[in-house]
């Protein structure tokens, strides 16, 4: 399904410099900065004066913008085109995860009221080691997640800017490096601009680019009229059986493993969870999740239609999609752009759709890098290494962390071994294995303690690494061939390793917690506070509530 890629060049894609699309990409990116600047609420002259808060719909769109990466915009349609039914595991996984988030974590996280995911782990288990493990995991997730994004930027960039012809670099590599550099530049200015407003605008631009692209492609080719999301069904019988027959490309087991990994990974991703700590209150936390799911679903219900149109257009214009050689994974990853191009739409329009893909990747990488940078500068540096670190010092450490993430991502994306969606799912597996059990048990079982969390997280990291190395990711083992142990690649594939590893981490965490002393009463009360049926004042954290109650209970000295 995903063999090594020889030269990353999407066949059939018109690779050349195109002026209008180039202007559109530049205009789209700069409009994000301009909108951010317009909504920049001057500065906060007095921090104690309440301003206007952000509503559910806006939060939902911001969740959508943060979430919708190259994996959603390009990768999902790609996997459906390449692997048919198997690709639906991504549609199912990436939406169902929001239910888990809504039911078990969103409002509870708001009550806990900290800043970052490692903050929760560190404070809940009262351990700097646990905090450091969570921070390292957060950094790793940002890195692994971004490899797929870099691949997406590089491939789509080829349509717009062509092969830059830099000696020693392939067209893809040059483009990937260019866009990673742009992302880091974007990151260094976007943070000072209006964050949520900016994300709302980004969401609108991305979803319009995607949906209008789909509508136009379906319309000019005659596949669909006004509702391609449903009409593509008529195409199914015309497409080869490999597109529509279940479990041709991947086994039933792999489908389940992937879906489970994605569901729980979604509920454990630090850059998604961070919004829930900050929303105005618990009700907003819940409704924002619902709106977020709605806005994301708009894209996800459309991706299969794009994939079907793309597959059909590819078969008619380039060659058989399946079989040997079949569609390469590089062409699959740009199927959204390729379909629009093959439908004969003008290059500025194809450029608009492509720009949406690039913008999705840039915006998500920005969010991931900030989560990674805060893990290093706030959670490790300011909380563990140097407790009285000034803002300035933390800022510098954060900048170094971002630079390191950028360089690591560029290095790893030089010759990525798998399609975008598969690369991204490695990060989901990591979140599902290491972080989700900590959030879930930490929030819902008060007896989870420090030794349990430490044992769970460290074994989780190892369990995640085993299939990754076995399949030769990062080129660390046997020059990229990996151990190639058959049993592991069959039953614990890297793309869905959480199906086996996550329950193991649950068992280890629970067993060790039972064998060691229970956490102190204060921690238990804090956990109860996070899901107590009584309402809680919005400007307090669970920790403060517990502290206040303990104070009240103790008889005073005088």
């Amino acid at each position: 399904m995903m063999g090594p890629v020889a030269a990353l060049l999407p066949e059939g894609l018109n690779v050349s410099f195109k002026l209008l699309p180039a202007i559109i990409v530049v205009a789209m990116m700069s409009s994000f900065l301009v909108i951010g600047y317009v909504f920049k609420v001057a500065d906060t002259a007095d921090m104690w004066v309440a301003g206007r808060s952000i509503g559910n719909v806006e939060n939902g769109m911001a969740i959508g913008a943060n979430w919708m990466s190259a994996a959603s915009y390009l990768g999902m349609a790609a996997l459906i085109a390449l692997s048919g039914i198997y690709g639906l595991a991504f549609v199912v996984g990436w939406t169902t995860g929001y239910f888990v988030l809504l039911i078990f974590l969103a409002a509870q996280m708001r009550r806990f009221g900290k800043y970052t995911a490692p903050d929760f782990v560190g404070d809940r288990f009262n351990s700097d080691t646990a905090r450091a493990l969570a921070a390292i995991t957060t950094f790793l997730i940002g890195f692994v997640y971004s490899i797929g994004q870099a691949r997406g930027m590089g491939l789509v960039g080829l349509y717009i800017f062509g092969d830059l012809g830099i000696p020693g670099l392939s067209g893809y590599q040059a483009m990937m490096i260019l866009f990673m550099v742009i992302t880091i530049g974007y990151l260094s200015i976007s943070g000072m601009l209006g964050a949520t407003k900016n994300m709302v605008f980004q969401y609108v631009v991305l979803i319009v680019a995607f949906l209008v692209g789909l509508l136009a492609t379906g319309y000019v080719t005659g596949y669909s009229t006004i509702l391609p999301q449903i009409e593509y069904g008529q195409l199914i019988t015309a497409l080869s059986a490999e597109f529509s027959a279940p479990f041709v490309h991947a086994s039933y087991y792999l489908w389940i493993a992937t879906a489970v990994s994605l569901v729980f990974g979604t509920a454990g991703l630090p850059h998604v969870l961070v919004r829930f700590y900050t929303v105005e209150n618990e009700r907003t936390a819940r409704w924002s999740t619902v709106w977020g799911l709605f806005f994301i679903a708009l894209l996800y219900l459309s991706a299969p239609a794009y994939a079907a149109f793309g597959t059909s257009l590819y078969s008619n214009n380039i060659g058989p999609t399946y079989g040997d050689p079949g569609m390469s994974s590089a062409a699959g990853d740009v199927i959204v752009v390729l379909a629009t191009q093959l439908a004969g739409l003008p290059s500025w329009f194809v450029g608009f759709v492509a720009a949406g893909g690039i913008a999705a990747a840039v915006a998500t990488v920005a969010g991931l890098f900030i989560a990674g940078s805060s893990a290093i500068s706030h959670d490790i540096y300011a909380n563990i290494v140097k407790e009285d670190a000034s803002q300035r010092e933390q800022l510098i450490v954060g900048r170094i962390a971002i630079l390191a993430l950028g360089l690591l991502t560029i290095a790893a994306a030089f010759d990525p071994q798998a399609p975008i969606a598969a690369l991204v799912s490695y990060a989901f597996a990591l979140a599902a294995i290491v972080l989700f059990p900590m959030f879930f048990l930490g929030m819902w079982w008060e007896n989870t303690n420090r030794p349990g969390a430490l044992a769970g997280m460290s074994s989780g990291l190892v369990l995640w690494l085993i299939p990754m190395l076995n399949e030769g990711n990062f080129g660390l083992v046997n020059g990229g061939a990996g151990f190639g142990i058959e049993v592991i690649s069959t039953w614990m594939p890297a793309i869905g390793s959480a199906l086996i590893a996550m329950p193991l981490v649950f068992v280890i965490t629970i067993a060790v917690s039972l064998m060691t002393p229970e956490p102190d009463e204060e921690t238990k009360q804090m956990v109860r506070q996070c899901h107590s049926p009584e309402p809680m004042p919005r400007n307090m954290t669970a920790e403060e509530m517990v502290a206040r109650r303990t104070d009240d209970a103790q008889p005073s000295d005088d």
Partner: protein
Amino acid sequence: MYERILIPTDGSDVAEVAVDHAVDLANKYDADLHALYVADTEAINLTLGTEQVDRIREGRFSEMPELREDAEAATGHVSDAAAAHGIEVVEHHSGGVPHQMIVQYAEENDVDLIVMGSHGRTRVGKVVLGSVTAKTLRSTHIPTLVVDYKGEF
């Protein structure tokens, strides 16, 4: 000569070397002392996350205990030092780009002297890291007294 003295502080050792100078001047000139803490939104963006910048913009500072404690400790240090001389301090907390917020506060409150600490950094260090003090100097006409951290030891 001086009626209102502003001491911007982030609670760091570098910022606090200026406190004694400011308090002494305030004492001599019988001036009001203002202590200003600016939550650097760029630093918060990278260290706590973009969402937290919104939170500050919304004025929900009271929900962020650690940051609030940092701010209160920084300006509180100035108040404590001044209290020894019987001087009252106006403590203020704001969020934004530090040097811009310092200048804005100084101008809006008719401050006639800014006293702040500075790293005695090398040239390379200044280029790479920049300096709030240097940027403040460049963006205001109000007299500014710079106390060098290294010169104090």
